[in-house]
């Protein structure tokens, strides 16, 4: 059996001295798409922040392996260069940083970290224009400062654009569907599906089964109170849609 792209072992994470993740076990084999669903506040974003290495998310127990190697000691930028990408639930607006400058810096920084040559300007332009076209992203949007003044849906599209350009091994999409209209959902899902590949895996966090009609998952996991409490195939998402999360809530002591 080949090494899974992402493996999480008994992960415990504290935020500001409060334990949020209480023993997460998850294996995402190469080429698979896994979905995570769960109540607000159950710890889904905490999981994606801990995987991507945000300061303040303290791993107290367990391990996170990317292609078989622990990434706990790596800084966020090193994890990205190792092939990790998270599409943010709430992308950050950065006034004064031009979108194109940012994209080029990110692509070249990763290439440099991997010992690859930097992109020439024509190569870079071509890549951006192609990816932007695929995602119906307006050229004018790319001329603005990063995410500044983008609508909610535009920000999510821009996240997927970054994902397409950075070609990660492991993609985490944290509620990329929220804030998208029906057409945008279609465009973004197609964008994500285009990136599905035998050596690339995805973790899709969502509240809506609807997204999973477009991006069909191999596995669905139910998250509750900082743990995965149930896993199944795509039918599980339909079941959740019908019955809600009540059955998975922790039993009151």
């Amino acid at each position, binding site marked *: 059996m080949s090494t899974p792209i992402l493996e999480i072992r008994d992960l415990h994470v504290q935020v500001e001295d409060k334990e949020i993740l209480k023993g997460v076990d998850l294996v995402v084999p190469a080429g698979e798409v896994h979905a995570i669903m769960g109540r607000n506040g159950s710890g889904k974003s905490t999981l994606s922040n801990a995987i*991507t*290495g*945000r*300061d*303040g998310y*303290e791993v107290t127990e367990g391990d996170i392996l990317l292609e078989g190697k622990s990434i706990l000691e790596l*800084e*966020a*930028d090193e*994890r*990205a*260069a190792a092939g990790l*990408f*998270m599409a*943010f639930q709430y*992308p*950050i607006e*950065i*006034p*004064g*940083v031009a979108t194109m*400058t*940012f994209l080029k*810096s*990110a*692509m070249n*920084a*990763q290439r440099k*970290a991997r010992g690859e040559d930097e992109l020439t300007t024509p190569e870079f332009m071509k890549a951006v224009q192609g990816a932007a076209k695929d995602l119906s992203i307006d050229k004018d949007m790319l001329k603005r*400062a990063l995410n500044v003044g983008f609508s909610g849906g535009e920000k999510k599209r821009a996240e997927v654009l*970054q994902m397409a350009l*950075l070609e990660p091994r492991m993609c985490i999409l944290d509620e990329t569907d929220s804030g998208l209209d029906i057409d945008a959902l279609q465009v973004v899902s197609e964008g994500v599906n285009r990136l599905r590949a035998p050596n690339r895996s995805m973790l899709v966090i969502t509240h809506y089964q609807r997204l999973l009609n477009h991006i069909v998952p191999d596995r669905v996991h139910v998250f509750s109170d900082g743990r995965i409490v149930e896993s199944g195939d795509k039918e599980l998402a339909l079941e959740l849609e019908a019955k809600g999360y009540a059955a998975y809530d922790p039993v009151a002591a």
Partner: protein
Amino acid sequence: MTDQKPILTGAEKALLAQLEQAGQSAGAHEFAIAGLPTRRVESYHYSDLRSLLTQVPLLAVAADVAPGTESPAPYLSDAVCLDMVNGRVSIPGNMPAGLVVKEISGSVLSERDDALVRLNRGLAGQAVHIQFEGDVGWTVLVSRHLSGDACHVVDGVDVIVAPGASGTLVEMFDSSDAAHLGNHATRVRLGEGARFTHVIIDLCARAVRHFHSLEYDLGTNASMRNLIVNSGASLSRVQMFGRFSGSRAHGDFTGLNLVDEGQHCDITFDLGHAVPDTTSRELFKSVARNRARAVFQGKIVVDPVAQKTDAKMMAQGLMLSEGAQILTKPELEIFADDVQCGHGCTCGELDSDTLFYLMSRGIPRAEAESMLIRAFLQELFDPLENDELVGRLEAIVANWLENGSASAGAGKAD
């Protein structure tokens, strides 16, 4: 109450002797009583010159200067360049039409209750007078070089922008690596409808102490923008005294303290809206790294007659190290009732969410920090219309960023 004379410091004694030697007996008498300003003088609250200015070199004399020294590649290719070496002006022969440049003597500053202004008025040697006429919009670059052994240079630039005329003045300061003391002055008078851009860049060696007093007078319908960049010198104070004397005039006053270990840079601003219907915007930024101190004091006074004044002052600070200090004091004194005035002030570290966003895309921490610092400063540079000048300013910032990572002491949380 005691009326005993204060004990003068060594620096004060040297300045007193220079005033006496210059025949400024009244000024010397006054200085002997007041000395250099301490923190008890309101406008020097954060810059106690008596303790900060520890030593005063000999006054530069014209004979010290080797004339016609090497002239490096022009800093700005389309500018008319004037050099002042240790206070001595050299003016190229053929000035283009619309530009009058001549040598004058004495101080260019008006009398006012300020120690640095008094010293400039008492000790000034030469100054250069520049008059912009017509709307060609010449750019003049005045480069002040403090050269050779440490010396005390007292000089000035006097600018008139004729009614309806426009122009840009860039003032650059650089130096040899010696403990020079500069007491520079610039006076700008804008005629009716005149337009003016003024950029002042201090790139002196760290050994230098740099003082610069600026005076602005804006006539009816005049408009101007300035930008002060303090990045050289161990001790610097750039003080601006602005006055609106004609209605419907507008001023954008901006500045930057870009400071590192051991530097104390002060921008002090004093603006009087003295007539009705004038507008001003002030934007002052400080970036401080290691044990550096950046000071901004801003005061806007709106006279009783100055109805419809619209003035907004903003001070923003970015602290990159724990030992860095940014001290800010904004003041509004409003004596008219129909005005729109406000001030704001923010000071903090780089935003950690923003930093994480950039790093999560693979951009290393130091590079991400540099991107955010450049972004923080962009709104100071963007409004300047001269791309070459903006490029120069960006290069100053890039150079500053490269001389050590901005992340000193800000490693990973654990």
